[in-house]
């Protein structure tokens, strides 16, 4: 009996020892990473104390479209790499290789569907993200670099979608590329040369497929990753903008002018200005993130955030706001998989291989080009159409230079409101008409 007991105790002790040694190993791993990459210091300095606005309703989640986009880009690149193992970029084998991936490769149909439908979803979110920034005026200083990077990313993603659309080498792909590249011919003097350069020759063929493939797998993804990293870095530096109708009001009577709010502000949004015999804080609404750190740290509790429409509450970036962003991401991924599994008949149209001798009855580009396609069709002259499309893009790029100051609320900017909302509605209508007609 004693022998049995002593053996049990020895066994229990051995198990306990192994658990504690496992624990040491686990924290040892984290320590190893900390020694080499200083993740704890980064977390403490950059993430731990940081706060941001707490979402109040569903519309606030639209503001997390940037986070969701980052995740979707990672998904797109992952599925792209999986496709790259089997895809053959030649006129003879491209269509057959895509069909072989769908037919024969394990889960091939799943990640082909994800790659195709995700590309449409990414551009939808890019437009939603861009329209939201335009509506809340978040393109102004100090956020101009984000806006310029964002418009560059829009162009890169559109070209990525255009180049990727040709790769399955189906009838729709081929003829959409014919129409898309042919429109450049309207440009005087350089039109023909430009079309030749885009196509790698007079007609769409193997050379076109090769160069579109090269763009699609090297230059474009690398550029998108680099610009996205810079875009996120600049967002992290200046923070997420407060809603346009927010008013930060320091109480001039209670304020003792200690300057604590200026010291604790992570976004350099507070300036101390002389008013009479003391210095009072002036909060720049374009820089303020409404994170409320100044409110919490103020010794005389004289700063308030007010809005006619809502309360302003803040929360820590980690883990609270991260959870909100994760929830938004999961919701969008949910919609993506509903489309992948149940709506593939609507989104996927590559049914026949490309035939240069047979023009299909209805040739349409992918949804994100329908508005510009319809605009080109409506205008009498193709050159005017190109000028209109690129002109609108140019105006969007230089928006921070056109609108530098003044209130950001749409209610107080009737002309801007008319132009932007009118532009968004026109874009949506042209997209619908382009898809239906």
């Amino acid at each position, binding site marked *: 009996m004693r022998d049995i007991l002593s053996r049990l105790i020895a066994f229990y002790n051995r198990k306990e020892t192994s658990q504690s040694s496992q624990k040491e190993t686990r924290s040892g791993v984290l320590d190893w990473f900390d020694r080499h990459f200083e993740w704890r210091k980064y977390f403490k300095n950059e993430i731990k104390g940081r706060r941001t606005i707490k979402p109040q309703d569903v519309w606030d989640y639209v503001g997390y479209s940037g986070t969701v986009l980052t995740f979707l880009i990672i998904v797109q690149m992952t599925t792209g790499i999986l496709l790259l193992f089997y895809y053959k970029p030649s006129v003879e084998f491209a269509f057959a290789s895509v069909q072989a991936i769908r037919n024969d490769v394990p889960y091939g149909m799943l990640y082909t569907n994800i790659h195709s439908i995700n590309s449409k979803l990414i551009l939808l979110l890019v437009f939603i993200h861009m329209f939201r920034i335009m509506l809340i005026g978040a393109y102004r200083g100090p956020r101009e670099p984000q806006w310029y990077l964002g418009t560059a990313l829009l162009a890169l993603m559109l070209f990525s979608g255009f180049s990727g659309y040709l790769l399955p080498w189906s009838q729709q792909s081929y003829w959409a590329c014919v129409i898309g590249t042919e429109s450049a011919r309207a440009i005087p003097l350089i039109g023909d040369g430009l079309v030749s350069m885009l196509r790698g020759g007079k007609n769409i063929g193997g050379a076109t497929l090769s160069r579109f493939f090269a763009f699609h797998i090297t230059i474009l993804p690398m550029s998108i990753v680099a610009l996205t990293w810079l875009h996120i870095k600049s967002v992290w530096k200046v923070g997420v903008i407060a809603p346009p109708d927010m008013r930060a009001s320091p109480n001039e009577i209670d304020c003792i002018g200690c300057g604590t709010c200026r010291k604790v502000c992570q976004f350099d949004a507070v300036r101390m200005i002389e008013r009479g015999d003391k210095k009072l804080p002036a909060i720049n609404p374009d820089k303020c993130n409404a994170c409320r750190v100044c409110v919490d740290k103020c010794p005389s509790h004289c700063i308030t955030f007010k809005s006619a429409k809502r309360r302003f509450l803040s929360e820590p970036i980690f883990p609270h706001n991260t*959870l909100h962003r994760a929830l938004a991401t999961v919701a969008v991924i949910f919609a993506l*998989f509903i489309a992948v599994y149940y709506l593939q*008949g609507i989104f996927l149209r590559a049914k026949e291989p490309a035939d240069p001798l047979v023009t299909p009855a209805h040739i349409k580009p992918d949804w994100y080009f329908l508005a510009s396609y319809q605009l080109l069709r409506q205008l009498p002259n193709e050159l005017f159409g190109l000028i209109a499309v690129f002109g609108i893009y140019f105006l969007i790029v230089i928006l921070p230079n056109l609108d530098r100051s003044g209130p950001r609320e749409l209610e107080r900017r009737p002309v801007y409101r008319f132009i932007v909302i009118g532009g968004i509605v026109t874009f949506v209508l042209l997209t619908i008409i382009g898809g239906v007609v």
Partner: protein
Amino acid sequence: MPKKYIIAAAIFIPMIFFSNEAQSQNLFLLQDMCVKCHLLGENYGKRNSVLAWKDSAHFRADSGCVECHGGDKYMYIDFKRGHIGLPSRAEAVAICGKCHAKEKSDFLSKRAAAPTDFACTVTCVDCHGYHYVAKADAELFNKANCGGCHAFDRAAPIYKTAAKARGAMFSIETKIETYQNENFPVDSARSRLDEIGVEYVGMIHSEPMNKFERVTKDKTMKSIAELESQMEKSSPGKWKIEGAVVVTFLAIVALILLGYQAITEKS
């Protein structure tokens, strides 16, 4: 213009657009010189041959009179240009084999392997017909075709086996169409079904009929069953169930996140 001419034009001009379909098809057939005489000639029997050919698989494949009877389709009967008139039954295998070379070699190997008392002088036209050549089907094993040489009771089990195999292939074809309508990939299944079909036809021509049932069961039906089980693995139903699992998992993750959010806010 007199009224009567206007009325006549109003009656007859629309007739150009609403002409009899058979009449317009006959007009089309008049391109071929053989058809011109054999269709419009007084010999009613010959007229039937042309009409039977018009409904056949050969007509649809653009294979006309001269492919079997020789000659030049733009000339009248010209024996100097190779017209052989009415070929004998014995010549049928050589004539059909000019285009259907594989079927001819399969068939001749069966004849060579057949025991001498079988003494089967059956040729291609005995089963497939000559002018109305229909697509090969289990229905070819019928009383009219088989009963010409022997009692049908020997052919009846063969007919049943062929009908079963054909039915199984037809159900796979229907499944392929359903998958295709739901935008599912069907190329592998389709090419495999074509391979099975070609093997099966080759087997009908090359294997002795007394071994037909066993070979159909061992090879063809087994291949069809394998194809069917492969198609089941990637069926739309299974895909949708997989989708439901993924989507439910994401919904659960979202609920967990919501719960965790509520807990962190409370704390």
